């Protein structure tokens, strides 16, 4: 009887990896479509509608770019920690804290001119997000506490801090009891680019992306980061600053997620309210892994998964598909791609069993 067995590949798969990736994507779409059909929705029509309403018009593309910004910033950060085999699952909480930090600055110094207030808001967002990233780093280094669980728990705590503020001390008395702060003064709002709906946060993304690529490729610290990620023990032996790197990536990662929170509060909502938490931090994990931690690919993947979110909004309105379907798509894409990675590393062959 012939038996299927796996043999480790000697050479990289090259373009075949792209094929495997596309096949994984197709599998994920099949699974998602089947689930839609089970719910009695027209599956093919729905999937087509998702793609079309996400990428089919200028208005939709603008929406994708707007949603890609927070995903990109969070994903760049968590991707940086993944390189070091540090698992920051806490972008969601760091995002919340960043929004809180920026809002504090906007509400406390409303009389400042924009060129002082906006940078200060960014600074406060970095400090708050960075602090939220530093806690798990220190707990991991000092007490060996698992950073996956600590960052996750800090997500819940961070969102509750945000709730505590907008339901309490920061609640706008004129909001008819709705949990939201008062609207930011114009000086605290990141302006739009020209006559588009995009804001200057997009430019910030571009700058951060380029800086990150240069840092990883061309600096000593970037090299040490990659080396430590690949082999911690050897890197420690070579006296690379492992502990310093762990704190650094976590603080940078937290600050980047904090920036995303700042932009969402300032440019997208113009105030702080609980609806700011829409799971960008978790989508960022999916993006970072799909993009193989490469900053350029992260940009592309952020845009595509932002598209899933934009398309979902139409599906919700037109076909009453629950918003949770987005999670099904993200989860199944990631699972399928993870499994597909097998074919990049192994090849299958049939042989006769003895």
């Amino acid at each position, binding site marked *: 009887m012939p038996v299927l067995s796996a043999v480790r590949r000697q050479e990289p798969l090259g373009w075949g990896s792209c094929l495997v990736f596309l096949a994984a994507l197709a599998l994920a779409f099949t699974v998602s479509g089947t689930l839609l059909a089970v719910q009695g929705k027209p599956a093919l029509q729905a999937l087509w509608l998702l793609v079309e309403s996400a990428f089919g018009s200028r208005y939709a593309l603008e929406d994708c770019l707007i949603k890609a910004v927070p995903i990109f910033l969070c994903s760049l950060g968590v991707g940086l920690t993944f390189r070091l085999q540090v698992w920051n699952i806490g972008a969601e909480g760091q995002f919340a804290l960043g929004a809180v930090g920026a809002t504090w600055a906007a509400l406390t110094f409303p009389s400042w001119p924009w060129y002082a207030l906006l940078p200060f808001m960014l600074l406060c967002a970095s400090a708050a997000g960075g602090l939220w990233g530093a806690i798990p780093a220190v707990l991991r280094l000092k007490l060996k*506490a698992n950073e996956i669980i600590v960052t996750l728990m800090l997500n819940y705590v961070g969102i509750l801090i945000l709730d505590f503020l907008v339901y309490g001390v920061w609640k706008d008395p004129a909001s008819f009891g709705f949990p939201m702060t008062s609207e930011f003064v114009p000086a605290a709002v990141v302006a739009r680019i020209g006559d588009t709906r995009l804001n200057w946060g997009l430019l910030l993304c571009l700058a951060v992306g380029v800086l990150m690529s240069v840092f990883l490729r061309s600096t000593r610290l970037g090299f040490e980061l990659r080396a430590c990620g690949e082999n911690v023990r050897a890197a420690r032996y070579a006296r690379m600053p492992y502990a310093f790197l762990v704190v650094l990536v976590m603080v940078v990662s937290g600050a980047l997620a904090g920036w995303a929170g700042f932009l969402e509060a300032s440019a997208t909502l113009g105030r702080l309210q609980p609806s700011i938490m829409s799971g960008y931090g978790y989508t960022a994990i999916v993006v970072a892994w799909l993009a193989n931690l490469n900053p350029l690919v992260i940009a592309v993947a952020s845009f595509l998964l932002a598209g899933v979110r934009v398309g979902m909004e139409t599906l919700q309105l037109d076909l009453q598909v629950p918003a949770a379907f987005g999670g099904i798509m993200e989860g199944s894409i990631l699972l399928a791609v993870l499994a597909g990675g097998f074919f990049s590393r192994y090849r299958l062959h049939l042989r006769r069993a003895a």
Partner: protein
Amino acid sequence: MSLEILLALLAATVQAGTPILYATLGEILTEKGGVLNLGVEGMMLVGALAGFLTALHTGSPALAFLTGGLAGAGMAALHGVVCIWFQGNQTVSGLALTIFGTGLAGFFGTPYVGRTAPGFDKFSLPVLGDIPLLGDIFFQQDALVYVSYLVPPLMWAFFRYTRWGLGVRAAGESPAATRAAGLNVLGFRWAALLGGGVLVGFGGSYLSLAYTHLWTNGLSSGRGWIAVALVIFAFWRPSRAMLGAYLFGGVMAFQLRLQAMGTALPSSILLMLPYVLTIAALAFSSWRSKRTEAPAALGVNVEPSE
């Protein structure tokens, strides 16, 4: 605080701790076999929904509980396909499983939000329920709580005295040596993963069948992650899992009581308690533990054999 209120609080502690206990025990079984499954939160949600829907449509809570367990095993099987068959990264696969499971439960559950289903009611166990104090706390609960008392000793005995238990531990400690001894490493890993999935699914269906009797989105609210943290707190021992689960049940019950009594503390601060306590418990147990306590090959995939 009067004795009556204290006893009610402790009984509520046991109830609130039970879903966490099932999930923690499930993850202990899984991790003993060497597979790290971070999908617990998503698996609990799917288990909770499967249980709820079965109870709603068949009216049989017992069948519903079993369905919840099967759903948990089904989710675990997805993790197994990705990590055991296809050698995917266990950490990332678990995270993806949670995202997928949360989506799945929200997708199929949204039309049922706020509906109630038949579930398990409390009854006093004969004789044991009449014991003063202890009876009030432990033996005037629902049937699923009584079942949960049996699992830790059974699991302890399984690991300690049975060949299968030994096989699971071996697959988690040293896959190479296990294979050399002629045992089927992947078989034991699959068994531990699926068995753990059943227990996690039980934990989920406890939430919708006994803890609340109704469906809401995001019903598990982080309990799955608390269970993953408790595995470390418990040093992978079923008996300590019981201690940890009731500790967390206590905090949750206490926090609910305080809210119901109308304290001056805002509810968001009270809701933080379990999460902050998880971090504290994790930091404490990581600091106290010795390196040897986790299964040596936890999270390490077994290469396909030639």
